């Protein structure tokens, strides 16, 4: 019932909040509580920070050995690796949570109440994006500590790149949810997400290697063919898979192209929404029963 003096719109908003918003918020709170009291997210940040330390140490050694190292941003490689690692973790974690909860019957239990497939997935998505924000802040903290310890400067663009990486990270979480909605079982779900992540990275590496390879002067040039194939496939996966958005966003930012980086983040956000809707349809189709 609406309050006295409430407009019909306000009543509708209140009703929508009661029916969908409140359950979603409750699920987000429980998920965040469960995730942040677990060890895995901190372990991932610790690995990313350790890798950064290793890269910086390596750079400093080279400076000591050669006397000079020309590098535009000492944190660039670490940032790339760290954000990619967090995104892959986020996709795998989101996929694992949904697959596990479906297998255990938690999704069915929630469906006894006012929880739809979409609000369930929206809650998982939101909690994972919030989790990513917390993890990025922790990673940033480790960068600041390393910057102070090494005397290397942490550039503003690095901070901005980290902030904008939320779009690609959201896309990664949405993809994890889609995979879990379609596959159902925990182990195949995790393998599929990791396969997609490694496939994207592997394809990107193959493309870079092939582009740099000299082409032999044959009538039918196999390197040229492979190069075309790698470029064609990676051009598609760059848009179809979220890890491509991570790559594009960070590359734009490290080039100093803020407008493009913002654009990539926005497109990644749209991608996340579309994939989330697909995941909800997939979950409704494959069924929420264990």
């Amino acid at each position: 019932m609406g309050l006295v003096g409430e407009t019909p719109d306000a009543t509708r908003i209140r009703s929508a909040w009661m029916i969908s918003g409140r359950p979603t918020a409750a699920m987000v709170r429980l998920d965040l509580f469960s995730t942040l009291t677990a060890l895995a997210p901190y372990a991932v940040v610790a690995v990313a920070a350790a890798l950064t330390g290793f890269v910086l140490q390596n750079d400093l050694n080279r400076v000591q050995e050669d006397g000079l190292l020309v590098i535009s941003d000492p944190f660039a490689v670490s940032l790339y690796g760290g954000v990619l690692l967090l995104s892959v973790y986020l996709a795998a974690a989101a996929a694992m949570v949904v697959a596990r909860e479906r297998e255990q019957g938690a999704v069915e239990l929630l469906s006894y109440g006012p929880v739809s497939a979409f609000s369930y997935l929206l809650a998982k998505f939101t909690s994972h994006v919030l989790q990513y924000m917390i993890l990025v802040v922790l990673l940033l903290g480790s960068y600041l500590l390393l910057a102070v310890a090494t005397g290397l400067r942490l550039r503003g663009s690095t901070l901005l790149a980290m902030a904008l990486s939320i779009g690609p990270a959201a896309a990664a979480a949405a993809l994890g949810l889609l995979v879990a909605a379609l596959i159902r079982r925990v182990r195949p779900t995790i393998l599929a997400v990791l396969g997609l992540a490694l496939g994207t990275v592997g394809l990107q590496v193959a493309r870079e290697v092939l582009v740099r390879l000299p082409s032999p002067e044959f009538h039918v040039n196999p390197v040229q063919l492979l190069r075309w194939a790698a470029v064609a496939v990676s051009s598609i996966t760059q848009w179809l898979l979220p890890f491509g958005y991570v790559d594009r966003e960070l590359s734009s930012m490290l080039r100093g192209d803020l407008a493009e980086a913002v654009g990539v983040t926005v497109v990644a956000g749209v991608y996340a929404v579309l994939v989330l809707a697909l995941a909800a349809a997939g979950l409704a189709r494959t069924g929420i029963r264990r």
Partner: protein
Amino acid sequence: MTEPVVRTEQLTKRYNGLVAVSDLEVGVEPGEIYGFLGPNGAGKTTTLLMMLGILKPTAGRIYLWGRPLEDNPLAVKRRIGVVGEHDYIYDHVTADEYLRFFADLYGVANPTARIGALLDRLGLLKVRTLPARDFSRGMKQKLSLARALLHEPELLLLDEPVSGLDPHGIVDVRRLLLELNRNGVTIFISSHLLSEIEQTAHRVGIMHRGRLVRQDTIPALRALLRQDPTLEVELQAPVPNLDVQLLKLPVVRQAQTNGRKLVVTVASGADHRGVISQAVAAAGGVIVGMHAHEPTLEEAFLTLTDAAVERWVS
């Protein structure tokens, strides 16, 4: 006329050609306790899940409070409390946190007081701060019931609600359900235990192989399932052709001798031990002992063969 709280219309569910529920027509009246009875695999859980919109019917419709379920399932489900057959309990949280989460999910006003009252009522107050993974199956079942009652539902859908409970727990839950029903809550209990349904339900629907074979009140069902009592007689010595002679008596339905043992099924409604004693004596037999056995309603139900159920269907 009041609309039934739950009504199904030719509800059917098939899985790859296998019929789980067929043309089910069930009506649960407001304030009623409806027992949904049947052996495992009869289609009870499938029906319940269709009522919640978790499984999509192959055909037919479900009406809750007179409106098709698909009209606004989320709003309707706020009025329902459910205990599933194998409820998942988040085992890393305490009973208190578990219920607080669901209170939050349903928007329960004054959750602390409500949770405390329910835990107290179900005897879980002392363990409220323990993680659910340390709970016994019975405690988990009670926690599920507390969760289902948190938002003060108008309709309770319970799938085997006393499974895993000890006798004290069963009595506690039964009392609670009767109390809730007195306060106006409509209850739909699915169970394979006739004894449980018999003590709580006003009306019973019997499912068999996906079909509702009978829907009646408990007294009517009791009359239907009543079986003739059996007399087990021990003789001093075997008497030739005693069974044939006993079958001539109008009260004897069946008679079978096995050496010194005689089993006679007699017509229900009166004590026929005197008649049988006289007949045995007339045939030259001496009775050493006699034991009368009146089947309970549960035994009668359990001994019903598939063929008998099929006869009801036809």
